[in-house]
């Protein structure tokens, strides 16, 4: 085939992922949170991870409860259905979504008030059921949307902006999740972009409940001296458990790591999480007791150990426990939802 016109100089191709989608397909509305809010960094990490991973936005359900963090579900994946629901009830709402449509990737974003206070019971039961979903906690230790009251993830001894000291024991959602059988538990910090992305991608690959607790400072109400979740405090009191990376199953390059220095976790979909030793010390995220001990120690040390805290493969997710048909229940044709008249009449005969 010939053409009369000269070919135009090639425009710079925008970067696309394996679904041929540009990053813009993963973006949402502009954030209305305070400038500098840790949550906005997490939103960016979500966008980048899902873009990199090549998650189909049309197969995602975004779920959230109520609070600053829950608002962020509007700020990413504009092409996904989203549900900013009720305070504390995101976990059971996501459970219902997961049952209605097994093909969806459920991404839940919640806060510490939502998760550790009003919705703690529901959160724990979701974990216990192993509902297939990613449950991100944007943890700032306070209630932002009601102007700075303590939440249940505030550390003992932490001081509020107005001077009150928290005398209560901290609720550690990671420890609770491990206790209740969660197979994927991570902790990160909103500023640690690379680690957070790796954890999110790993969560996408995990078939059951994946809980990621992200310490995310509240710049308006909890960023002062005396706070244990201020930017300054967290930066000075956190450490990486490992140098984490995520290798998707569709990648062609061999995983490049030095044996003895890197642990590799194979995920159910064939992707891999690599955990490089830091300063020669190795943390074993498959040892449940080690993980719980670490978290317990962290409370005394007032320190945030971040990375993949616990991983366990092979726990049946809820949809498998229920022996559900693989297609979404939501779109099963009517004839599969109603037994025959013959069955009906057989039932009637039992009552005669």
């Amino acid at each position: 085939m010939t053409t009369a016109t000269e070919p135009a100089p090639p425009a710079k191709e925008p970067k696309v992922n394996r679904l041929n989608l540009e990053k813009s397909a993963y973006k949402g509305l502009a954030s209305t949170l305070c400038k500098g809010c840790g949550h906005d960094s997490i939103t960016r990490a979500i966008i980048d991870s899902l873009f990199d991973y090549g998650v189909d936005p049309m197969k995602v359900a975004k779920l959230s409860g109520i609070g600053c963090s829950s608002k962020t579900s509007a700020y990413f994946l504009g092409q996904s259905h989203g549900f900013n629901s009720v305070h504390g009830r995101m976990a059971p709402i996501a459970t219902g979504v997961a049952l209605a449509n097994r093909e969806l990737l459920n991404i839940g974003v919640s806060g510490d008030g939502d998760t550790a206070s009003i919705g703690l019971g529901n959160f724990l039961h979701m974990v216990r059921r192993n509902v297939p979903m990613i449950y991100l906690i944007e943890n700032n230790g306070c209630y932002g949307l009601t102007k700075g009251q303590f939440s249940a993830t505030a550390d003992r001894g932490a001081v509020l902006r107005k001077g009150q000291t928290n005398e209560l024991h901290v609720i550690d959602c990671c420890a609770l999740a491990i206790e209740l059988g969660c197979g994927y538990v991570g902790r990160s910090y909103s500023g640690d972009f690379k680690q957070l992305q790796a954890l999110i991608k790993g969560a996408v690959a995990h078939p059951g409940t994946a809980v990621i607790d992200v310490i995310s400072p509240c710049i308006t109400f909890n960023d002062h001296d005396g706070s244990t979740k201020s930017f300054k405090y967290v930066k000075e009191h956190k450490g990486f458990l490992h140098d984490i990376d995520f290798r998707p199953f569709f990648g062609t390059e061999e995983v490049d790591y030095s044996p003895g220095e890197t642990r590799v976790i194979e995920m159910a979909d064939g992707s891999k999480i690599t955990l490089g030793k830091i300063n020669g010390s190795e943390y074993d995220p498959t040892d449940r007791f080690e993980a719980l001990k670490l978290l317990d120690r962290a409370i005394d040390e007032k320190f945030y150990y971040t990375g993949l805290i616990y991983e366990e493969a092979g726990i049946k997710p809820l949809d498998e426990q229920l022996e559900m048909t693989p297609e979404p229940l939501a779109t099963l044709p009517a004839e599969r939802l109603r037994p025959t008249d013959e069955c009906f009449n057989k039932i009637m005969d039992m009552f005669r």
Partner: protein
Amino acid sequence: MSATAAKTDAGLSPVVDGTVINDVVVEVATANGTGSQSANLILMRAIFYMGIPVSGKNLFPSNIQGLPTWFNIRANGEGWVARRPHPDFLIAMNPETAEADINALQPGAFLILRDSLKGFLKRDDLVVCECPFDKIVAGIVKGLLRKKVVNVLYVGVIAHLLGIDVEAIEKSIDWQFGTKKKAADLNKTAFRESLEWARENIPSQEKFQLQKSDANEGKIVIEGNEASAIGVVFGGATVLAWYPITPSSSVCEYAIDYFDKYRRDPATDKATYAVVQAEDELASMAMVVGAGWAGARALTATAGPGISLMSELAGLSYFAEIPTVIIDVQRMGPSTGLPTRTCQGDILKAYYLSHGDCKHVLLLPGSVEENYEFTMEALNLAEQLQTLVFVMSDLDLGMNYWVTDAFKPPTKSITRGKIVTAEDLENGVEFARYRDVDGDGVCHRTLPGTPHRDAAYFTRGTGHTDTATYSEKPEDWKNNMDRLVHKFETARSAVPAAKIETAEGGSEIGIIAYGSSDLAVREARHILARDHDLSTDYLRLRALPFGAEVDQFIRSHRVIYLVEQNRDAQVAGIIRAERPEFATKIKSVLHYDGMPIDAGVILARLLKDGSRENGSQ
């Protein structure tokens, strides 16, 4: 003592040579957890097998073992089987209540008395049959089984006294024990022994007799909760989330059984449904909301305390327009109340459940058949109207035994309402989640996972525009709220219309009732017409919001008696609020002691008003 004493509060069958044929109330007083339920059901079903209309009401305590329980069986050849308070026969098995039970009997009533309880008998105006049940059972079985088998002995005695067909009893025993042949045989032996004993030791009576009839052709015996469960499974429900609470638990337990049997894919044996027992009612309703949002036909079943907990999510379902269904099997409140007693006390609460301006569609089943039909209907309506739909059952319908025509297989197809698909979008259909394009207040929705880039929208409980974006603008808020009212008006004509029965020539007196009051109302009307020359018209409300036929009915009657099983005249309140012009026309007939309503309550009120009016004229 003649049979007429018992006649005052009942519509009776023919009396032949002084014998009342096919009209009797038998009450059995036992202790909970002693296995008496089997014996009671054997007795009730035997009467059913004789072709006589019958009902069985289990008046049980909130207790697993030990507290008193009563089973009230009413057989009536003409089909008047609403509860009748004064039994013609009392079977007294429980020492704890024997004295009070005996003292409550009408003079002339029959008392079948476990002989160990004779110390409680302090009156001489009863026909007493002392029965050595413990001695008889000792001759049949040993050990702990005696405690269970002793119950079937009273079946033998009452069978002798009422002339219950032996074959019907044996057939009933077989039904009761199913494949447990050993248990069936043991019960048959015990029944025969006691029948023999009764024939030898208790003189026959001629006051009440049961005779074979043919009224039960094509009929079944069923509890309303099981009927609801059948509606769940045949209504195409896909997600059921629940939390155990009396008296609704058995809806879900029966549904689980039927799902397992009838809703697995024949090729793969995989479930076309999901059932989750949640951690509380907040969670069960949240699961239903999540599932409904994602496109499941989702429901829960609960009782009053449960709907209190579901309140916030009910508002979300209403405002975000998510199809959900709650079956409320009403029990006595407030608070824990009387968990094993019936009432219609949740109507107002359910109608307005949640904060802000909130209104819900309520279906009001008046029979176990409607438990089945309305459950299916609710699943359809929830999707058609994209909102929460309640099915307001109650303990009397749900947990008692009703003789009814065998249900027909579903005639209405499963409908999913206005769903925009990827194909529609590809074909240029415009999608705005909260835009009223059809003028009926019901908008279009897409389901999460729809493979089209224009399918997504953002659901929120906060203020929104018609394209589902966040808005705090006064006009957006008001427009949306007004559209929801418009949708509610659409619901008025979409819900099951009221049923109206008009007296010959019509009457200026109208009765309105709903739910489990139906049989008692119809019996009362029958007696008023037959014995008091007082004809009445009757409207049975089957849903809220009420349709135009209710307006018409109220308008065309001089006075309306609104029968309810609650203290605060809850439906009357709703009608008065929505139609203030009718406010003074409505007189309430209220019954709220926890027992199922009986015709006498309605009769007494109408007769009292009637005589007052006559006196003043």
